[in-house]
């Protein structure tokens, strides 16, 4: 393991931690523009984090150790996930430790901990949020797995760096099955990251919220970590999407010197800018679904992913 490899690995993780709030801020800004509101500055998420870290924690009297541990575990799992996903380079020593299936597992771990923490205080909204989030989780996971299956079959590997290397080997040639998979992935991304049409990140309307309901009892540094972790989750999902469907620009093995890395960072920022604007557009154009329409929405995503898989098997066989 050379020094450069370590720089790449840690540099990637630090970059993810640093710009994840920026990505959320960018989406919020685009959304405000599209809705003809005065936009908050790009640095708004950082300001909020700073303020939250300065405040005193107000902890519910009956909160257990699990409740206090959870923000750290959430943040930790999301940082680890960032270390596995090839966002700027594929030669990541840590990526051997966990493949894409383990990545889904890491996200599931984070979700289970947040749900348990939400049930810990024993308030009405906390357990409702936990129940709904776990429901979205079990509906989204099969669809996500089918999307990944598609990529695995194309590249012959479940490790994301290998998927990227396999698809960048033939530049600008996209398997038609990936088109279906990409739409399915986008739908899963919206659902898993508590965004419209499944959840509204900007609402505190009691009966419709999911993610916010679970974070309701958190305050100050705990809330900061929970929010930062959810920013990181969105960033990670975006990077998984880039790795699967838009891998061009990621510095591949053997061609990842300082120049290539600098280029990869620039390309990543460009992709995030476009993706953020596109997400804001989707969120502005669609309305939030009733919670019991969520199964239909995610079944649709699942069907698209299966369609992609069948297209691949029919054409490939």
């Amino acid at each position: 393991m050379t020094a450069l490899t370590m720089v790449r690995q840690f540099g990637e993780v630090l970059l993810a931690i640093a710009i994840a709030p920026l990505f959320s801020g960018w989406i919020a800004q685009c959304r405000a523009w599209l809705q003809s509101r005065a936009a908050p500055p790009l640095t708004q998420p950082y300001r909020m984090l700073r303020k939250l870290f300065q405040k005193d924690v107000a902890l519910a009297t009956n909160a257990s150790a699990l409740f206090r541990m959870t923000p750290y575990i959430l943040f930790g799992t999301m940082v680890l996930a960032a270390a596995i996903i090839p966002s700027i380079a594929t030669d990541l020593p840590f990526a051997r430790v966990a493949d894409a299936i383990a990545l889904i597992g890491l996200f599931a771990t984070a979700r289970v901990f947040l749900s348990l923490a939400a049930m810990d205080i024993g308030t009405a909204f906390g357990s409702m949020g936990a129940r709904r989030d776990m429901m979205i989780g079990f509906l989204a996971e099969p669809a996500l797995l089918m999307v990944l299956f598609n990529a695995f079959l194309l590249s012959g590997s479940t490790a994301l760096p290998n998927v990227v290397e396999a698809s960048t080997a033939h530049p600008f040639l996209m398997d038609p099955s990936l088109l279906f998979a990409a739409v399915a992935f986008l739908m899963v991304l919206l659902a898993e990251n508590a965004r419209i049409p499944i959840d509204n990140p900007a609402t505190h309307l009691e009966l419709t919220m999911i993610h916010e309901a679970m974070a309701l009892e958190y305050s100050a540094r705990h809330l900061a970590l929970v929010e930062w972790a959810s920013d990181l989750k969105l960033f990670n999902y975006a990077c998984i999407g880039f790795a699967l469907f838009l891998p061009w620009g990621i510095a591949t093995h053997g061609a990842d010197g300082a120049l290539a890395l600098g280029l990869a960072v620039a390309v990543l920022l460009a992709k995030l800018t476009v993706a953020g604007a596109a997400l804001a557009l989707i969120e502005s154009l669609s309305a939030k679904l009733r919670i019991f329409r969520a199964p239909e929405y995610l079944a649709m995503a699942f069907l698209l992913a299966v369609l992609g898989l069948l297209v691949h098997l029919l054409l490939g066989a």
Partner: protein
Amino acid sequence: MSLAGETSRYMVAFAKHDLSFLLMLICGWVILGIVGLVRPHRMGWIARILFPVGALIALGIAVLGAIALLSGHAPQIFLLPLGLPNLPFHARLDTLSGFFLLLLGMAGAGISTFAAGYFRSGEGTAPGLLCLQYHVFLASMALVILADDAYFFMVAWETMALSSYFLVTAQHRIPEIRRAGFLYLLMAHIGALCILLCFGVLQGGRWLFTFDAMRGASLTSFWASAAFLLALIGFGAKAGLVPLHVWLPEAHPAAPSPVSALMSGLMLKTAVYGMLRITFDLLHIRYWWWGVLVLGVGLFSALFGAIFAAVQTDMKRLLAYSSIENIGLIFTGIGLAILFEACHLPLFAALALAAALIHSLNHSLFKSLLFLATGSVLHATNQRSLGKLGGLIRRMPWVAALALIGTLAIAGLPPLNGFVSEWLLLQSFLFTPQIPHAFLNMLIPLGAAVLALTAALAAYVMVKFYGVIFLGQHREPSLVHAHDADWLERIGLAWLALGCVAIGVLPQLALRAAGAVTETLLGQAVNLTSPFWLIAPITSRQASYSGLILLAGIIGVVGITFVGVRILAHGRMRRTVPWDCGYPWQTSRMQDTAEGFGQPIRHIFDPFFDMERELPFPTDVAPHYRIHIEDRMWKTLYLPIARGVQRLADWIGLLQGGRLSTYLLYSFLTLIVLLGFVL
């Protein structure tokens, strides 16, 4: 065998007598049981001496099983001086039995230690008798695994069924428990009958009932399939495959918790063992459609179990349904292995079989752990209903912490052991497009989606289980007096939790153990050459996973974050009332109940359930809400069969008129008919 080089000469010499030592240890269990009868009401003596000794014996069996597994010896055979004159008992120890003995010993040691602290006198069966039944049950399971002829196998199998029946009905004064026990006994015997018939087919007309003779018998494809189907029904009834699962959610909760743990964690695995023994060892050929059948049944059972577990309101019933789910996952792996093997893809078959074996091992650990934890909760609170628990993490911190490990493990989350087997299973699904059958190679990959759905549902179920029991506010005021488990119970729980963590962190150990088995059964093992902290079952390019580094990474990042936040910010905190959007009155009845938590599942999977609901009207002065969920299988399958049997019995009953002259007439007619034969 990679470990063979490392084992010393002494160990090899020791391993030669492995089987004799094993049989001695099993005898030790029976002797313990008989000693318990000497003073059947001295609880202290039985609990503090006999059960811990039993745990030590279990540990010894685990060690001997591991030696048999890893020493790479040829199978050892032993003729027991027991049985009928012309039918001696044959015992045999090979890698498959070694693996299941390891499983039995590892989980058994934890359960027996827990049982030492758990059993109290004055509940149903006398403690001495309970001790006998308990240890005979353990011994019979070990003998099932060691048996090498059909006769011995059936004797051990029936002893297992009977001893567990008596254990289930330990509190026989309660009518529901008697009924559950009877249903269990009935299903166990239907299963045993099928297994007996299966052996009848397997001997292939030579009337030799040793397994060795059966291995040599060459059956036609029809009879081989008949034997396989009989085995699937027989062992499926014991394992709880849908639709033969109905006894399981009745019998497992009825038993005392250590017995539930033994039944769910270990006894179900003997059925898995039997299925593997017959399919991969005794039958000389396998057809692809067997694999598809087992795969389908397995996936359906897994989904069915997970869905029903999500709507249960009794904590032990919830775990029983979760056992059906896990058995479904194990059979999914077995089905894939048969399918791959029949399609001449032995490496992938080895991968799928390793996944099934490791999941068996994992399930024996985490399910025992959770059943035992419910036992502690039951003793502390006298409540089994989820609707009357809550907030126990503050009263029972030890049980809560150890149960959390089991909960995360069974939910299939990295870096614990449940994830390892699910990961392996998903990896083997990735190769299904290579099956040389049109349509099948497109349909079967969709099974992976069912698997993912089941795994995610399992996480839902476990969040409900843990959240409703241990988190939130106390749902009953009496829970304030709940006390933590005693030290023996804690040791038992901690041992099982340690197993969950160890296999999760070092999956290579489990993969090597499973690899030794697949080497024997399929002549092939997955790639075992990677370092001890990493698994890469096919190639490291295809996929690799390391629980150890992942755990180290999580601990490292969480630690750095914690210290970083403390240094850069501060650690100030004050305690206050919960916020909850500013609602001032918070009672424990406002949390989600177990029914409430199951509501999305009832809504989404509506066709699975037979629901009876009483909903209150808005105008009701005293609103009453009641829901009753039943298994559709009862109405569609079991009740018609029961009615048919009843009608048949009525018909046959006509013969029994009660008049002596009629009976004499019967005898006379029989004699005439027999005379006809003679002449």
